[in-house]
């Protein structure tokens, strides 16, 4: 992350990537946990599903954080974290939406 | 105890199997074959000590406790070997040999 010069543009990019890592990464991890645990719960007791998904979620979070700073642009950082987060969140909410319960 | 001693011997072998530490300890560059042999025997000894810890845990404790204690011993031994090659590099081979013998003895005694 060698900056040509440390000006306001550089700081903006860094801040953006940091937000993508911290907030986008968390959203990704949370979506991952919810979606994966729901899927696993089809085959195992729900406490097992929840714990397995949660343990893996931390790795997902770390990977997302790494991606946020490896992506070629800050937009790419957000794309790589927020889009999967929204997708997985939608998967997690899908059973509810289809049943029509609040 | 035996886990620590065996791991100490093993890590020493691996260290001596590296150019830098081989030179510091023995004053001359090791041949490729010797270095590779040292490193391989080191890793082998590590695996052996792990197997001993899991299959025949000392003190009659459970296998999981034995493996945990081995993992702790692994790191303690690594620190000890680093200290040895840093401050007493020329004594490394002798200490390694002594640790190997002491480790096997300790194992036989059930420690």
């Amino acid at each position, binding site marked *: 992350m060698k900056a040509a010069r440390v000006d306001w543009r550089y700081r903006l990019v860094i801040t953006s990537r940091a937000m993508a890592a911290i907030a986008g990464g968390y959203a990704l991890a949370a979506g991952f946990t919810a979606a994966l645990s729901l899927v696993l719960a089809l085959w195992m007791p729900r406490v097992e599903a*929840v714990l397995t998904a949660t343990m893996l979620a931390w790795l997902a979070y770390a990977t997302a954080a790494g991606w946020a700073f490896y992506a070629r642009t800050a937009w790419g950082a957000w794309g790589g974290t927020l889009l999967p987060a929204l997708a997985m969140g939608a998967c*997690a909410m899908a059973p509810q939406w289809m049943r029509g319960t609040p | 105890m035996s886990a620590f001693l065996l791991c100490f011997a093993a890590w020493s072998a691996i260290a001596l199997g590296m150019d830098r530490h081989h030179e510091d300890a023995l004053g001359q560059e090791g041949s490729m074959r010797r270095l590779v042999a040292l490193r391989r025997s080191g890793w082998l000894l590590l695996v052996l000590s792990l197997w001993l810890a899991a299959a025949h845990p000392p003190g009659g404790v459970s296998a999981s406790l034995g493996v945990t204690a081995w993992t702790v011993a692994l790191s303690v031994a690594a620190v000890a070997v680093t200290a040895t090659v840093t401050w007493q590099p020329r004594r490394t081979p002798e200490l390694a040999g002594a640790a190997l013998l002491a480790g096997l003895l300790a194992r036989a005694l059930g420690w």
Partner: protein
Amino acid sequence: MTTATSTVRKSADREGFRQAMSWLHTWAGLILGWLLFAIFLTGTLSFFKNEFNLWMRPEMHGLPRTDAADAQVAQKSVDALVRKAPDVTQWILHLPDDRDPAVNMLWRGTGNGRFETLRMNPQTGEPIEARQTMGGDFFYRFHFELRTAQKGRWTIQGRWLVGVATMLMFVALITGVITHRRIFKDFFTFRPTKGGQRAWLDAHNVSGVLVLPFYLMITFSGLMIFHTLYMPAGIAANYKNEKGVDSNAYFADLQGEKPESRPRRGAGDKVEPLPAIALQPIIDAATTRWQGGRIGSVQARRDANGRAVVEVTRHEGDRLQYRPPRLLFDATTGQWLDQADATSPAVKTYGVLYGLHMARFADVGLRWALFGFGVLGSLMIATGMVLWSVKRSAKSQTQASRKGAATATSTAPAAHPKAPFGERLVAGINIATLAGLPLACGVYLAANRLIPVGIEGRADAELAWFFSAWGITLLWALACAVVRPHRLGWTVPLAAAGLVWVALPLINALTTHTHLGVSLPAREWVWASMDLSFLATGLLLGWLAWRVRPGRTPRRGAPARSARPARPAPSVPVAPAETSTSGA
């Protein structure tokens, strides 16, 4: 695209990846590095929290050794409690073991109040009047919730901040491994005589890599211990009920028990006081079921149906997995009802992670080894922070000298150009944390002996000494940073810390009868080893203060650009730069 180009591109990609991870490693580590050091150091001390609890309550000296399986111990204590508080509705009795000779009783009356604590003599059941102190539990509670007062109310916020720091540590560990270019070749490489950045980087690498399994375990298990707070999305998705999320059901599943057996009380709930309970048959039944197992604690409460139950919990040190198994009995008839234990694979894994983190399973040898790992981890964080400071100051020095300030003479004392504000701030915080925290811990222990017994709010007074010492060091460090970064900034707090820790056994001798003069002849190893460890810590800190004292390395006359040949001088924070070969 030829293969040559794609190989070049691949290795360039790998380099770009490594560089990005290196940058992330530096900043993830730096942002909350000072907090991480505090968390790691207090966590390390917490491995011995039982011993600290004992040392800080000298009134507990001389308690008789008893067997936890002896039902008389439990019965006498419960009878004494009921005499003192007849309307007790729930009590939890921790039986004595090899690390704590007293009975620890937690109890509460009606409502959803906090538990009160009573320490009791195991033979008579009579309460022990020990001085009011948080003891070793302060290190423990500061470690995971940044507790600042005995009845602190910001514990959830503290846990959140600790969680953020833990996640950053997790990222720093992983990126550190990715960034370390020669992780196998440099495995045992430590060159303290080289001085400057190389020595600091070696120290950081060596303390990081050799104990890596421990750090990964402790960090990951830390994240999992509070996963219900940090990552509840899975629970929310799977444990829905009409009112929202059925967290009671989740907690029950986590502990392998039925939700009705442990009802959560609302504030102001009216609960009936407990009936009289005969503990002998219950404890005997438990001991029989767990042949060879130790009893850790006994508790009595009412379940969701209002029935009085007694729960006997196995000693936490009997296995790796936390929580230990529990046996449920009917309180009035003594009939065995149920065994609660988590047995499914993921829950067991969670339990083992939890248990590894708390290290209740560890005997004396393992405990000291884990303590050593904790010290190395603290050193890893410390050397990382100092390394950043050293690198940055070297870079800005080279930049300044390149800008034409080529007037460094051998007579000018430490003619540093005014370093940028951020650098001086970090250098100051480094001193405040890395030297200030050890000083504050020593002061806390001294306060325990020096504050008069029996005054109001004594426990919080001890904490006030702790935070004041830390605060004063911070002021000192900031003053140094403003005036001019100088090694004196390090020497003074380190020397003060060394002095305080070395003085502890002496203060102990002057204020109590648990000092080395008593404990050594009587072979009371727990008491004696505390005093001896304090002495050793003080000597170590004093030695560090001696090593970094100003004027130790004579000033180098020539401009700082050339890499000087290494002399057998110790690494000190202001040596000129050597180009680093790896890392950020």
